């Protein structure tokens, strides 16, 4: 009898303790409001869904401030610099890292991560070690695994009639382009007019042989197309650490080397109407994404979102027909040290880790622990998986475990090349420029690209002027400081 009473009392105590703990967890951040700066549109979707779940569970409030792409940088940086501190959490692209982390505006997360692991070791090393840290300290959690890939119409590439005709015209087997020359050949071959045949069917509209993102402005434009091609033509010891922008010893820009000129020549040829759609220099990410999934274009290079887009019944006319591969490469490379061209045995590739959204907590956040709890929630568990599968979030896989997750593999079952292509692309990933004023450097480069592609200036002249502009930006920011920052970003010792 006494045992029964004791047991009952013990159970009741346990229940009460559990109930109390649950209530406490539910009220853990009661009264706390966290303000999040996120890009407007699809990239805010996760905040409007998952973040609100977290808020409800913790008695907190999450305000999502959507910022337009064209002014997001100015608004975030002005707020941080002037101490307005309107945002507790900022979701930013990796090339702002030099300004935000380097500027001391981010809260260090090392202690939080030790106490409350966000699956740190499950992060893909390239994002964990390159994008989330500044020096030895951790300041960010990656929420998006961006790396540029090559998307194409697999059904057309493997069509027997097309293969036969291609071989007859170009003298080699039609396949996934391995080099930029092959890319141009395939683009020319598949560029068809309304009324012509494609894979045995008569076209009701023009079909574009390719569509490269070439638009200046808007932020998601031509720079990354250039970097993909330029990086493939460049040989330095630090390509895959992000060493394609400057000489780390002298801060001499590398963009105006023959590798840069060659890249622009390829882009000009690709933009020719004989190889691409009518958009030409006005094609941005959204245009290409829509055209690709609508089945209007044969191929292009862009973000991994192409995979889920191609499977989305709301927008895709090519479900199951898309193929994915690592970006084409170069057959020769410009050796920066030797100042000469060298042929390579296998194509040399460079896939920009373009943008790659990171979450940081404002260094002056009033509730850093609550903010950490929220960002940890956003990058773990079912959320991370959802981003890998859904076409609505604009986010891509950033964890190792996701590549073997059964739900993820099942989601991409009809496009089996997607996951292997993503994994292979990461092995040739090139980080963005992550030093202060990266936005200004990219802006100058974008203008040069546009002027060269429009024929206003020769590629060499345009890139030389951009390089002069880069030097001026470096001098304004402090040459020695920028050199130290750049070497830091590459993982090199400060000299």
């Amino acid at each position, binding site marked *: 009898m006494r045992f029964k009473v004791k047991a009952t009392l013990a159970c009741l105590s346990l229940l009460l303790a559990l109930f109390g703990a649950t209530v406490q967890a539910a009220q853990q951040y009661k009264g706390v409001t966290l303000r999040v700066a996120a890009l407007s549109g699809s990239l805010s979707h996760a905040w409007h869904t998952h973040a609100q779940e977290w808020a409800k569970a913790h008695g907190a409030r999450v305000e999502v401030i959507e910022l337009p792409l*064209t002014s997001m940088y100015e608004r975030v940086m002005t707020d941080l610099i002037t101490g307005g501190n309107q945002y507790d959490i900022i979701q930013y692209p990796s090339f702002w890292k030099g300004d935000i982390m380097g500027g001391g505006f981010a809260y260090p997360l090392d202690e939080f991560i030790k106490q409350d692991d966000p699956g740190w070791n499950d992060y893909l090393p390239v994002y964990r070690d390159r994008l989330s840290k500044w020096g030895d300290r951790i300041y960010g959690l990656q929420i998006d695994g961006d790396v540029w890939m090559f998307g194409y119409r697999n059904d057309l590439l493997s069509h027997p009639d097309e293969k036969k005709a291609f071989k007859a015209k170009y003298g080699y087997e039609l396949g996934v382009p391995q080099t930029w020359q092959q890319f141009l050949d395939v683009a020319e071959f598949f560029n068809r007019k309304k009324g012509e045949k494609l894979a045995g069917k008569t076209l009701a509209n023009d079909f574009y042989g390719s569509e490269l993102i070439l*638009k200046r*402005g808007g932020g998601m434009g031509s720079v990354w197309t250039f970097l993909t091609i330029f990086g493939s033509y460049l040989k330095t010891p630090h390509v895959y650490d992000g060493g394609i922008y400057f000489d780390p010893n002298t801060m001499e820009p590398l963009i105006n080397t023959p590798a840069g000129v060659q890249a622009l020549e390829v882009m000009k040829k690709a933009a020719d109407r004989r190889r691409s759609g009518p958009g030409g220099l006005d094609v941005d990410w959204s245009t290409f994404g829509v055209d690709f999934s609508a089945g209007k274009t044969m191929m292009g290079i862009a973000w991994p979102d192409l995979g889920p887009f191609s499977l989305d019944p709301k927008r895709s006319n090519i479900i199951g027909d898309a193929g994915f591969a690592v970006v084409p490469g170069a057959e020769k490379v410009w050796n920066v040290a030797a100042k000469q061209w060298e042929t390579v045995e296998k194509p040399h590739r460079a896939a920009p880790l373009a943008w790659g959204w990171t979450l940081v907590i404002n260094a002056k956040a009033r509730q850093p622990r609550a903010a950490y709890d929220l960002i940890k929630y956003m990058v773990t568990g079912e959320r991370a998986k959802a981003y890998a599968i859904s076409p609505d979030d604009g986010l891509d896989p950033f964890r190792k475990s996701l590549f073997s997750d059964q739900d993820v593999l099942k989601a991409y079952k009809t496009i089996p090349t997607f996951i292997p292509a993503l994994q292979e692309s990461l092995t040739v990933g090139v980080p963005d420029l992550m030093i202060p*004023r990266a936005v200004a450097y990219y802006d100058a480069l974008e203008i040069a690209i*546009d002027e060269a592609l429009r024929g206003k200036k020769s590629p060499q002249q345009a890139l030389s002027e951009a390089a002069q502009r880069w030097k001026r930006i470096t001098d304004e920011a402090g040459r020695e400081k920028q050199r130290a920052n750049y070497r830091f970003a590459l993982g090199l010792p400060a000299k």
Partner: protein
Amino acid sequence: MRAGWKEKAILLGPTVAWLVAFSVFPLLYTLDLAFRQWSIFTRENPPWVGFENFRNLLFDGRFWSSLKTTLLYVGSSVTAEVILGVGLALLLWQPVRGSRIFRAIVVVPMLLSPVVAGYLFRMLFHETAGPLNHLLAMAGLGRVNWLSDPSWALAAAILVDVWQWTPFVGILALAALESLPAEPLEAARVDGAGNWHLFRHVILPAIAHVVWVAAILRMVDGLRVFDVIFVLTHGGPGVSTEVASLYTYLVGFKSFNLSYAAAMSYGLVLIALGLVRFLARGAGVTQHK
């Protein structure tokens, strides 16, 4: 009874304080900034660099290119607005039924925020989905790459400005027309003057000073244009529609080189002052004729 200095101070004080705080101080602070090199990221005391920023401005090709774009924009849009505005005023001056309703409708574009106007036309000018190209295609004229062709993009931006601000010139011209005494017009008609002669030698000289002032006001506004360009083209394609104020904004808020942006702003102020003075002299000459 004359007010003593205490009364004057009390009455004028708040206004003067407001002006000093929100007009004079920012102007002087910006001028000081233009002579320094302020790096926001280091947050140090900005060192004095003298005229270095202004010297850099003289050799900044992109600044002069943006100024050229601005002057082209202003010259074209103001000319079109004056011609169309006077024409509009003449139409609205006619005693037809419903003219009051027409007058109300005509001012609607002016009431829109420039951002809204810019976005509206961005939709209209859309190369593939916009109604303008659709109408052109129906008329057999072919599509125009309004916003992606450098040859057309500035024209598109000018069109937006003309659409929005022609009514402004029209309203001012109309007010001048309605204040004209009837006798000179009647006398001219009696003397056998035709419509064109009446307009050229009687009406136009009488309203010229008002139209000139409207042109100056539009010019000053046009030199500061930012929002329409920002929304419509963001300075593109390339830098073909990058006006001076947009370039200043990019220097100040994308590169965070506020010192150089301050120097640029003052450079633009001096240029604008010179233009206004030149045009104002023209208005003075017109008035005294």
